[in-house]
């Protein structure tokens, strides 16, 4: 995602990124970032939570008007589900092809060290 924002921004169009992994923004020089501590696949919030989604979008848009280059702002409202439930339900029904491949390898890089 950093390359998407950086390339569009460099073409003269302002960008803001809403992400659950602001870690990458700090490493790759993303112009404006709103970090959300949400499970993968749901950057604007829970399905049907119109008010919550609107608030996240509004916070991102505010950064377009007011933020300095490279800013990373943390969205401070917690995810409404218990952590274990959120960790379980964001995953796809089957492991992704890469994970499935690794799990079959003797030198699986996901093995505990």
């Amino acid at each position, binding site marked *: 995602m950093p390359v*998407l924002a950086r*390339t569009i921004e460099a073409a003269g169009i302002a960008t803001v990124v809403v992400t659950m992994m602001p870690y990458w923004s700090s490493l790759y020089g993303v112009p404006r970032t709103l970090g959300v501590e949400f499970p993968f696949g749901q950057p604007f919030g829970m399905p049907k939570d119109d008010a919550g989604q609107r608030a996240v979008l509004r916070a991102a848009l505010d950064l377009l008007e007011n933020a300095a280059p490279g800013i990373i702002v943390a969205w401070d409202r917690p995810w409404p589900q218990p952590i274990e439930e959120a960790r379980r339900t964001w995953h*796809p029904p089957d492991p992704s092809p890469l994970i499935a491949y690794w799990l079959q390898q003797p030198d699986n890089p996901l093995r505990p060290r």
Partner: protein
Amino acid sequence: MEIDSFRYLPRSLERLYRDAVVAAVAKTPFTPLGKPLNQSRIALLTTAGIWDRTRDVGFDYAREKREPFWGDPSGRIIPAAIEGDNVGTGHLHINNLHIQSDLNIVLPLDRLRELVGQGIVGAIAKNHYSVMGYQGFPPHLAAWEHETIPHFIGQLRADKVDAVVLAPV
């Protein structure tokens, strides 16, 4: 509050990410929003790998299943007026059921329209954008940089878009 980027990842994957070698990047590009938000036209971009089933084919998830180290670098344009029933999903790294129940969690078109209605945002763009966020491991970004993103930029300019809200998944 500090965001824990790895809160929802298994520890094994966190280790892989943190161990990744990061190339130094050039200066952070920056384009100020040229006008107030309430006069600006806004577009959305998601990496959820969705498409409009009435006009496009889906991303090549079958090839990714055969070649796990490859991800489809193509892009799709999503019209602002898309109906929920016409949204194709298939991203192999997230649970698409959530998107199928409410597109706004990745592409908040309805929320953006509401902000336009409230006079907070000037206008919603005619077209929005989708890519498949997984670009292989390690990621191969050349096709995005040289084909997909320039195509998007051409459409953004044609639509006179002032700013883009991007949301990876």
